[in-house]
């Protein structure tokens, strides 16, 4: 009765380790139950709020008279509200939940003082709530990705210290010498985030830098948040989930080492590609473009490593929800990075700078890559916390396809629309309004994609709610996407 795996292949470890190990895992999982469930519950609540905001934002962009004339419903306030809810409410909290759980499992240590972490989660929620309220009431700082006012930053920082310090301190109590790949990424994320956030706040508000450097700091912050916080958590999660679900070790530790260090080194330098052709010394932007091109090294090594780990096991994608979401996320990492490289070239950037392409890029990173991976981890972790299996395989399938088609359609629409918008923008023979006229049909298509994503999120929230209320299945086998076939092949 290996509760973790798919019946096809029992992981060799658990067969040898036997009941003691199972017991130990159950014990560790139990210690993380309260904080991780709290993270997940708040994250999903924020996901729903952010989704509703996203729908209004998307529709208002092509129908500006919708809900107009009310100050807190104006597009320019809803958009940053949506962004910040998704970044700090949904993604950060969901990522934190997964990271804390993974850390405890990999350190083979029970989580000490889980209530302290839970208190941090409460503080964080309060911070995000106040911050979003402040944006809607017109107290935004005006810095993209850092719109929360200063007083909110203080709350978030206290909350973060409460949450992350124990996740890092777990390291002290870890058992075993080996530090697994996932732990590198998580440790990195936990240490990078506070530095990044503090540096952003200090250089923008406490000791503000001059003029255009504020923009440099903002985009340095935004890209690093994307790569070193969300990206690192998602990659760490994928390195855990893929081998775990298929019951096979990672193909190559060596590749993973190269991937990790090149990722840390190069992706942290990519921020200035967002400022291409702007009023900056050319070397800053050139350095970022070079770094973006070099991020192909971690993309190739990580992608190859996952691929070779998965080789021969791809049929399992039919059954395991975790694997399907995680592999989708891992593949999106490649797509996200390749598109990032393409749009960073100066010749391309002069077209797509100032268009919807940058929105497509952010959504690829935050949704297709990060969010899908985290969905995968939630499908794995939540049953281990509530002691029930997911109730409906069909709902998981619906969630996956709505999300996958939704984000796919959204990316296509924004990329295609953005490229055409940019081409018209760079054609002085056409009036400016032509570039807007061109992109409007694509923005309507994006709203359609948004409806798909809304459906998928509501399905997931409902399913998660059932789990939380203890209405999941009591079973020893996990819920599969295609249960009948899984059971027949399970006999092999």
């Amino acid at each position, binding site marked *: 009765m290996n509760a973790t795996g798919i019946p096809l292949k029992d992981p060799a470890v658990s067969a040898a380790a036997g009941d003691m190990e199972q017991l130990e895992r159950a014990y560790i999982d139990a210690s993380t139950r309260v904080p991780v469930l709290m993270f997940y519950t708040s994250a999903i609540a924020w996901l729903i709020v952010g989704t509703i905001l996203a729908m209004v934002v998307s529709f208002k962009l092509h129908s500006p008279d919708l809900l107009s004339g009310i100050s807190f419903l104006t597009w320019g306030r809803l958009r940053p509200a949506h962004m910040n809810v998704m970044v700090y409410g949904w993604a950060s909290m969901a990522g934190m939940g997964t990271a804390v759980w993974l850390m405890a499992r990999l350190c083979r240590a029970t989580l000490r003082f889980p209530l302290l972490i839970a208190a941090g989660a409460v503080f964080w929620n309060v911070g995000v709530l106040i911050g979003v309220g402040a944006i809607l009431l017109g107290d935004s700082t005006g810095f993209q990705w850092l719109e929360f006012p200063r007083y909110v930053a203080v709350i978030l920082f206290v909350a973060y210290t409460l949450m992350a310090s124990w996740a890092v301190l777990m390291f002290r109590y870890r058992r075993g010498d080996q*530090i697994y790949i996932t732990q*590198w990424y998580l440790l990195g994320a936990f240490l990078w985030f506070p530095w990044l956030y503090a540096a952003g706040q200090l250089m*923008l508000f406490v000791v503000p830098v001059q003029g*255009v450097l504020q923009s*440099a700091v903002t985009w340095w912050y935004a890209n*690093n948040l994307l790569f070193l916080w969300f990206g690192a958590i998602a990659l760490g999660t994928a390195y855990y989930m893929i081998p775990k679900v298929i019951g096979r070790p990672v193909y190559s530790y060596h590749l993973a080492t190269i991937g990790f260090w090149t990722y840390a080194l190069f992706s942290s330098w990519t921020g200035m590609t967002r400022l291409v052709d702007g009023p900056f*010394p050319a070397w*800053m932007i050139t350095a970022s473009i070079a770094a973006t091109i070099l991020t192909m090294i971690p993309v190739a090594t990580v992608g190859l490593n996952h691929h070779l780990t998965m080789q021969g096991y791809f049929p399992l994608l039919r059954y395991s929800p975790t694997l399907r979401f995680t592999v989708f996320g891992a593949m999106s990492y490649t797509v996200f990075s390749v598109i990032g490289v393409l749009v960073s070239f100066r010749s391309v950037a*002069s077209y797509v700078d100032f268009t919807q392409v940058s929105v497509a890029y952010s959504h690829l990173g935050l949704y297709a890559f990060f969010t899908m991976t985290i969905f995968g981890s939630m499908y794995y972790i939540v049953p281990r916390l509530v002691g029930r299996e997911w109730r409906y395989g069909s709902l998981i399938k619906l969630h996956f396809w709505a999300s996958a088609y939704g984000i796919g359609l959204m990316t296509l629409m924004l990329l295609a629309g953005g490229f055409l918008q940019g081409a018209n923008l760079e054609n*002085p023979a056409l009036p400016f309004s032509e570039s807007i006229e061109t992109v409007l049909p694509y923005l309507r298509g994006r709203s359609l994609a948004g409806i798909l994503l809304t459906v998928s999120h509501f399905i997931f929230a409902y399913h998660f709610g059932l789990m939380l209320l203890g209405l999941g299945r009591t079973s020893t086998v996990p819920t599969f996407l295609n249960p009948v076939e899984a059971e027949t092949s399970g006999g092999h």
Partner: protein
Amino acid sequence: MKGLAPLFLGIFGTFAFSWIGLTVIPTWQIGHLNPESDEEGTDIYPRPQSGMFVRGEHVYAANGCVYCHSQQVRADYIADDIERKWGSRRSAPRDYIFERPVFLGKMRMGQDLANIGARAPAPEESPAPAGAASPATQGAAVSSPPPSSASSPVTAPGTSPASAASPNASTPPGQRTGVASPSPGQMANTTPGGSSPAAPSAQTPGAPWPIQTAGLPPMYSAAWHHVHLYAPRSINPDSNMPAYRFLYEKRRIAGERSAEALQLSSSDAPPAGWEVVPTYDARCVVAYLMGLNQSHPLKEVRSVGGAPATGAAPAPAVQGASPAPAAAGSPAAAKK
């Protein structure tokens, strides 16, 4: 991987490398720029802003204008920003030294606003204090030499530059603030509906959008901005800008119609006996918009159509190298 030390060192090292490389070194390089001036120490650009401009900046931030409007002009060999008449030269780091927050922007669902103030009708073409009365006279109007520059030395952030820059600030009747405010009513009164002044076409030759609409105030004047903010689609039916009606107050006309009441076309106009007047925030954001002006030449950037500022800068892409422009011996930038 074994051993925590290399892991921790690596995590800190890589991030410190990026932090120093992309934020600390640029701060050292272009983080301490000073305004430029000619050899007498006058004609200082840029100037610190105050009063309504600063408040307008906050209104701009609060309502997320930056998510659709950029404020940067790219070089003519890269993009067609200059051809679109969004500026006469590319933006340089020095243009932004007093801006906080700086709104370079990442999206152009609306036009670039870096020089929106420079596109206002010149004072001599329309008698209302459109450009000159804005409290933010970075470079005043494009063509005319700024009235303030010859006499007033650099003004500290507290002392409003508007006092020097608005000779005709006494005229608008709608002033309760003491600061020279662009008064839409003024404009509406001077250009009664029907005739479209020639000002816009002189200011923005070849810029096909938006088009001067008959019956509306001259394009990019304060009155025009107010009408545009209140009812964007009354000016351009295809516009997808949201209407910022919450920045305006609809009130019953008490006695005489206010001089600052908006001149609205039929469908947006208030019922008879009512008028729409801008709130203080609306006046501030318009003052801010009209103060956005990068038309003043800079030595490190070549102005299109004008003489190259220094002549000795063959590489216009890198502007950051000059540490202190206060060198008094350098020749004055060619004034058009």
